[in-house]
């Protein structure tokens, strides 16, 4: 192995695993002990990645306090260091990590709040897409609608939680000082996170709308999705819901064949 690679592997271990070990011999002795030199880099790395997480998960930070967030972020960064030089990708595993972090086990809603914030972050950077072309839909014979697969806007993310995470999210925005207690038993949320132009919005959905959009997102045809949704909720009007989601540009395209998401950044 090359001397250069040895240095890089030793450096990374010294930063992420706190093991200076043999690597200290690679550092030229100067005014400071080797550990001091390395500590500057360790601080830079941990601080910049913690800031990156804070920027994506400000509500989680506010819920657990800045001090505890730093502690959790430190553990997360060491377990899940970034795997690309594009920081937009960093933090995808944070919600699941919080779900297994013993210190926040009593905050059962916290991982879902983190999922909501990650969905917001993804929606913010997702691709643009025009509204559904009604002329293209008009060219389809109505009897063929059943076989169509409808596609959601690239920014659309669906989140379901047994906790009132939208209320929690709203009460913990920077300019909000909502002292009212939130009843965790008030019921859960079905949410759509989506970007209109440059603005990300979070919209509460009915159970039926959530199920329909989730089945579209999973690639089911209209008839498959409708059958499943109506088996659970016979009174749900699939046609009206579809028209509404087309009008609001939640549903933006359709095809007879399954969509190929290979080139898309999907969760």
């Amino acid at each position: 192995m090359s001397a250069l690679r040895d240095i890089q592997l030793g450096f990374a271990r010294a930063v992420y695993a706190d093991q200076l070990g043999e690597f200290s011999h690679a550092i030229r002795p100067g005014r400071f002990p080797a550990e001091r030199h390395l500590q500057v880099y360790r601080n830079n790395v941990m601080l910049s990645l913690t800031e990156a997480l804070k920027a994506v998960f400000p509500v989680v930070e506010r819920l657990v306090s800045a001090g505890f967030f730093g502690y959790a972020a430190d553990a997360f960064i060491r377990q899940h260091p970034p795997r690309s030089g594009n920081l937009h990708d960093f933090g995808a595993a944070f919600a699941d990590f919080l779900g297994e972090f013993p210190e926040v086990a009593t905050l059962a809603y916290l991982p879902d709040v983190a999922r909501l914030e990650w969905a917001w972050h993804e929606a913010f950077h997702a691709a643009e897409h025009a509204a559904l072309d009604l002329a293209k839909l008009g060219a389809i014979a109505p009897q063929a609608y059943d076989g169509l697969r409808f596609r959601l806007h690239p920014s659309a993310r669906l989140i379901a939680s047994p906790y009132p995470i939208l209320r929690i999210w709203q009460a913990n925005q920077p300019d909000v000082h909502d002292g009212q207690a939130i009843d965790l038993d008030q019921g859960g949320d079905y949410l759509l996170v989506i970007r209109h132009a440059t603005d990300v919005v979070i919209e509460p959905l009915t159970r039926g709308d959530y199920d329909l959009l989730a089945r579209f997102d999973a690639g089911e045809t209209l008839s498959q999705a409708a059958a499943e949704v109506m088996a659970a909720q016979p009174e749900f009007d699939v046609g009206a819901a579809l028209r509404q989601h087309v009008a609001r540009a939640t549903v933006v395209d359709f095809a007879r064949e399954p969509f190929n998401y290979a080139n898309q950044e999907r969760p």
Partner: protein
Amino acid sequence: MSLAPTPKTRAASAIPATAGVGLRAQHYKELISTRPNIGWIEVHSENYFGEGGAPLYYLEQARALYPLSLHGVGMSIGSTDELNLDHLNKLARLIARFEPHFVSDHLCWSSVGGDYLNDLLPLPYTPEALAHVVQRIDAIQDYLGREILIENPSTYLQFLDSEIPEAEFLTEVAKRSGCGILLDVNNVYVSATNHGIDAEQYLTAIPATMVREIHLAGFTVNRYPEGDILIDTHSAPVVDAVWSLYRTAISHLGPRPTLIEWDTDIPALAVLVEEAAKAQIILGEASVRAA
């Protein structure tokens, strides 16, 4: 008919030897609506690696108003991992869309074994590292089909193995790979102070013809019982000592496009524009002398 220049002429004209500022998200709207009197803008390439949304929307508008430089912090040029083609692809896509005048990254590495550290980590200045960096820059320039600029980093440690002075290493990289140099005068000051090197000697060791761009920024000081370590935080105004070093650099190099960088505790846009105006005065004096 549109009065906007066609993309071809945009790309062909070089950034003039004027002062610009680093554009960050909090200043998008103000920059676009007030159009401050600055020569050009620079952004961090990776902040625009998304597929859509606000960053690209605002960069499109800012690009219509100012010459643009794309400055990378995540290419990990010195890494012994395989070149990250996904990263390069995203950069190539950005270059095709925004037609920047400069594309740059750092003389550093930031990843190994697939793990990224999100920092500009130092290289040992050895013949092995030199050959490696040259080969990587060759590959990147071939892939992008254009010259890139390489910036000297701020460093906080030196390797025992390092046998080539940084200025000489950087010059040799540029000579062998044909890349340009982005000379960060603040980084020269920070590294020189941290390692007890002569900053002016460093500057004058860099051949003027290779330097395409200059960076200026502020640092912070970490105090320890054994002494101070300067940290390149881009969080403060440019200090007097760095302004003085900048004058030396300009008298050695001639006027060069100069950028004010500020990334932490980012102040009002007006503060950045004011810093740029100071650099512009020094550039103006040099142009008069050169005439």
